[in-house]
Structure formats: structure tokens, C-alpha cells
């Protein structure tokens, strides 16, 4: 859609391949250098990459600035936690419930909020996420504010053992790759063109015959369901779920990952998650006020690299190949 010089296209593909290769190699490299905790760190990064990727489908392609995306993370995590609380360990059931519950929540939230736009849309999505957040606090049966411990990870008929860090890592990796691939198909399909058109010029879309609400709502539900899967994975990594998982600042962080990495691309949010969480780890080691450093970095990215880290890397690649 957006015209790019051939060099840029191939350099984007190259950056994408490098990221995939690096992520695929984290566990063996971590084992070799004897720093096994990197596996956990990158598992978490990829889970947030899934959340950010799902947000970018509606944000970067559909122009819907949802400020409540962490709600689906929470719903997905609580679906696993609550089922486990009742002794239901079946992973298919847990993940199925996580997907269904976050999709239904997105359907309802989207149905109401997509009638508005701009700042009202941002505020309504935030308000709904806050409602779900406070609802989770009020669930005293499930630990309320203190959260809920999960005894065992999801059990996929003993096909995979998610208590093994490396196994969990590759399951998360596989989900991320699957969503990257499905997302790529989606944004380039007829459906994808409709939501991109809606972002570009909503008035014209209506005049040429598109009932936009149903397309936007569908995209909203797909993104919510994808993020619900991220939540279910998060519950498996932490073996714990608490309301904090869907605090409004978390929604802001997912939004920042997308912007940092590159809106309107699917690989960008993955890079954004890596950069954001890596920076958070490094900076919070240095100072408790790490956000005071993160803020300016974001401002700089927005000012000088509108297409985010992904755009930046792709351009460096092009200049290299020319020089």
C-alpha cells in the first residue's frame, strides 16, 4: 500500500529474519553462557510482544487508539487462574476460555466504544479496562487485590510440559510466530484493506459503501482474543495472577511498545516489546525513577523516528547496502 523502494522492502524482511533467528536462539545461547534467566526474561518479552502485536492490528492498521488493551491480558490470565482454582488444568479448556472470554469482552467494549472516535474512544476504552480492573479487585474468592496463585501450568494432554522453562519459551515463541504469520495475512487481505481504509479516510469509506462498524468491531475482537492468549501465557509463566496485570499503566506500556517499535507494522511491536522491557530492566536497576528516563526516550523516538525502531533499523540496512 505505502510505496517503498525495493531496498527498503528487502531490508525490512532482513530485519524480520534477524529478529526471528535471535529469538529462536535465546535458550541455547543462554544455556551456553550459563545465564538461564534470560530464557525467562525473553519469554516475558515475547508474551508482551504478542499483546503489542495484537494492539497494533487495531491501532497501526485500523487507527483505533485503544487505551485499555491490558484488560484482555487480565481476562486471559484470570481465565487460566480461575479454572485452575477449581482444579481444571486442561490447557485446551483454559486457553479456549481465555480466547472466548476476551473476545466476548472485546465485542461488548468495542460495540459501545467504536461509536465514538478520537479522545472519546481513548477514554471509553480506558474506562472499560478500569471497570474490569476494579472488578478483579473485588473478586475476593480469587484473592482480590492480592491475586491468585496457580498450582500447575496448563496441561495440554501431556504433549508439552509448560513447567519446563525452555518448553514454555518455545511454546510462546511458536504462538508469536503464528500470530505474526496470521497477522500478516490478515492486514493484507480484503478485510485488512477495509480497516486500513477506515484508518485513512473513514468518511470516504462510508461513501464508497462500507458499513465500517462491523469491520472495525471484528478487528477489535480479533485483537482482544489474541491479547487474551498472551494473558493465558502470562499466567503460565508467573503461575500467579493479580489485578495489577491489567492496571491502566500496563495498557499504556503496551501502547508505548507499539509506538517505540513502529506502528503499522507487525514486527515493530515485537521490537518495541524487546526494547521497552530491556530498557525497563536496565534502567530500573540503575534507579527507581526509571520512567523519568524512559519518557524522554519515547519522546525522542516519536520526534525523530516516526516509524519506530523497526523503521530505523530498516533504513540503516538500506544505507549499508548502498554504501
Amino acid at each position, binding site marked *: 500500500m505505502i510505496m517503498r523502494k525495493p531496498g527498503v522492502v528487502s531490508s525490512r524482511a532482513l530485519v524480520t529474519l534477524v529478529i526471528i533467528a535471535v529469538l529462536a536462539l535465546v535458550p541455547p545461547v543462554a544455556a551456553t553462557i550459563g545465564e538461564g534467566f534470560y530464557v525467562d526474561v525473553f519469554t516475558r518479552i515475547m508474551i508482551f510482544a504478542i499483546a503489542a502485536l495484537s494492539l497494533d492490528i487495531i491501532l497501526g492498521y485500523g487507527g483505533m487508539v485503544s487505551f485499555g488493551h491490558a484488560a484482555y491480558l487480565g481476562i486471559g490470565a484470570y481465565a487460566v487462574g480461575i479454572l485452575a482454582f477449581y482444579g481444571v488444568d486442561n490447557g485446551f479448556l483454559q486457553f479456549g476460555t481465555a480466547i472466548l472470554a476476551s473476545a466476548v469482552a472485546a465485542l461488548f467494549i468495542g460495540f459501545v466504544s467504536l461509536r465514538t472516535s478520537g479522545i472519546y474512544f481513548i477514554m471509553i476504552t480506558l474506562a472499560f479496562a478500569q471497570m474490569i480492573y476494579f472488578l478483579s479487585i473485588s473478586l475476593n474468592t480469587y484473592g482480590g487485590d492480592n491475586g491468585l496463585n496457580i498450582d500447575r501450568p496448563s496441561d495440554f494432554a501431556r504433549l508439552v510440559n509448560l513447567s519446563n522453562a525452555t518448553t514454555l519459551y518455545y511454546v510462546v515463541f511458536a504462538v508469536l510466530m503464528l500470530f505474526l504469520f496470521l497477522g500478516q495475512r490478515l492486514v493484507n487481505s480484503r478485510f485488512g484493506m*477495509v480497516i486500513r481504509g477506515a484508518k485513512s479516510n473513514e468518511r470516504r469509506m462510508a461513501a464508497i*459503501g462500507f458499513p465500517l462498524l462491523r469491520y472495525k468491531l471484528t478487528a477489535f475482537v480479533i485483537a482482544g482474543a489474541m491479547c487474551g492468549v498472551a494473558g493465558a501465557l502470562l499466567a503460565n509463566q508467573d503461575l500467579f495472577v493479580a489485578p495489577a496485570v491489567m492496571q491502566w499503566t500496563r495498557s499504556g506500556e503496551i501502547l508505548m511498545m507499539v509506538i517505540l517499535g513502529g506502528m503499522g507494522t507487525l514486527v515493530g511491536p515485537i521490537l518495541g516489546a524487546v526494547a521497552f522491557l530491556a530498557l525497563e530492566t536496565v534502567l530500573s536497576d540503575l534507579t527507581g525513577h526509571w520512567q523519568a528516563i524512559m519518557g524522554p526516550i519515547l519522546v525522542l523516538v516519536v520526534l525523530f523516528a516516526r516509524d519506530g525502531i523497526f523503521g530505523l533499523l530498516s533504513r540503516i540496512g538500506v544505507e549499508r547496502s548502498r554504501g
Partner: protein
Amino acid sequence: MAEPLLSVTGLCRHFGGVVATDNVSLTIAEGELHAIIGPNGAGKTTLVAQLMGELRPHRGTIRLGDRDVTTMPSYRRSRRGIARSFQITSIFPEFTARDNIALAVQAHAGHNFRFWRAARTDPALRKPACAILDSVGLGHRADVPAATLAHGEQRLLEIAIALAARPRLLLLDEPMAGMAPEDAARMVRFLSQLKGKITLLLIEHDMDAVFALADRITVMVYGSVIASGTPGQIRANAEVRKAYLGEDELA
């Protein structure tokens, strides 16, 4: 006489105290090129927005053929064969010229809950899009992002998007606005080719073009229709001369 394709009766729409459309009635026959003229602020654009379903009239009815479409949303009117172009260019600037048209083709090619196949390489969308671009003379610019097209080309693209819906009734809101003379001449030639093939409602300030192209002309001033008739009748109408057309312009 056959039923008119479009009949508007007693249409009213105001914005606060401003009466933008004041009891407007008009009919357009199938195949007719009907021009609407009137000074800026006469309510022409507001009328088009109501015909397309973007603005709800406060009173009055709009019928397309034998169907009352007064409360029908835009996308359904589009499916029933109404399309419009915008006075202020309204395209998809990040898309290529071809993708602009392909999207409009897509709107009328069945449902779009298709998530798998790539749309941009789909011949079912690409071929008609190319044909329409060729028909407005933009075939050689198919791969250029719409944002970087010249102004005249964007105006042509604007109309091509509307045409891609294969409308029965095309509403053109000042298609030549801001065009260089040679581009405007190209547009007039294009409109004369289109005339007779589909029904056209043309809003235009260029009186030479209007009187050359129109089968009938409606004159609006301050939201009201002050005259409607053939170019000859309008030319001879004293009220029109006084209210709008300069005497010398018609000499």
C-alpha cells in the same frame, strides 16, 4: 413519463440558525445530467451530503426510484447505486492510485470478511481498478501514492473512486474546483463522455461547462431553489439573472 431516478421533496436542513437547505424539491430523470448552480454557501454541498446519507435532513423525503431512502445509511445507498465525489478531495493518500480504486471495487464485490488471500494481487480487484484508472487517463500513474499525485490527477482519482462503485446516480461536487485550465478542459471532455451512460448531478461554478453539459439546471440561493429548467430557460430567467448570474455573463 417514467418515474424519475431521484426525487427530492421539501428537504430542510439547518445548522443552528443557518438554514442550509430550505424546502428543496427537485427531480432527476434516468440518464439526465442535472447541474446545480448557486453562489458559495447556497447549500449545494449540504444537499449532496443529504442525498448520500451523510447528513440527516430535518424534514422532507428523498426517493431513489420507487424507494424512500431518506433514512438509509450511506453504505446502503452506495449499494443502491448512489455515489459521490467530494468538493474537497477525499482520497486515501497513503494508498497507491490503484489501491484507492481497488478498495472501492472491493466495496461492491461481495462481503469483505475475507482474511486470508492478499487483496492487492487479487486480479478480481486489480483488473477492474486498472480499467477504471485507464478510463480517467490515470493508468500510467497506478503505482504512485495518491498523496504525491498532482492536484488535477487527485481530482480525477476522486471521481474514479466514485465511478468504481458503478453507480446509477453520480453526485459530483465541484469536480473542477481549483483545476488548471487544461485539466478542467480534460474533465469537461470526460464528463461529456460519461453523460448519457449514467445519471449525473453536477455542481459546478464554470458556467461555460454547465451550459454546455447540462440537460437541466437548478439554481439555488440561500438554501432555496429559485429556478429549475433547461439551460435555455435558465438563461432567460429574470430572477436568476438578478440573483445570481451577472447580466453581462449571459450577454
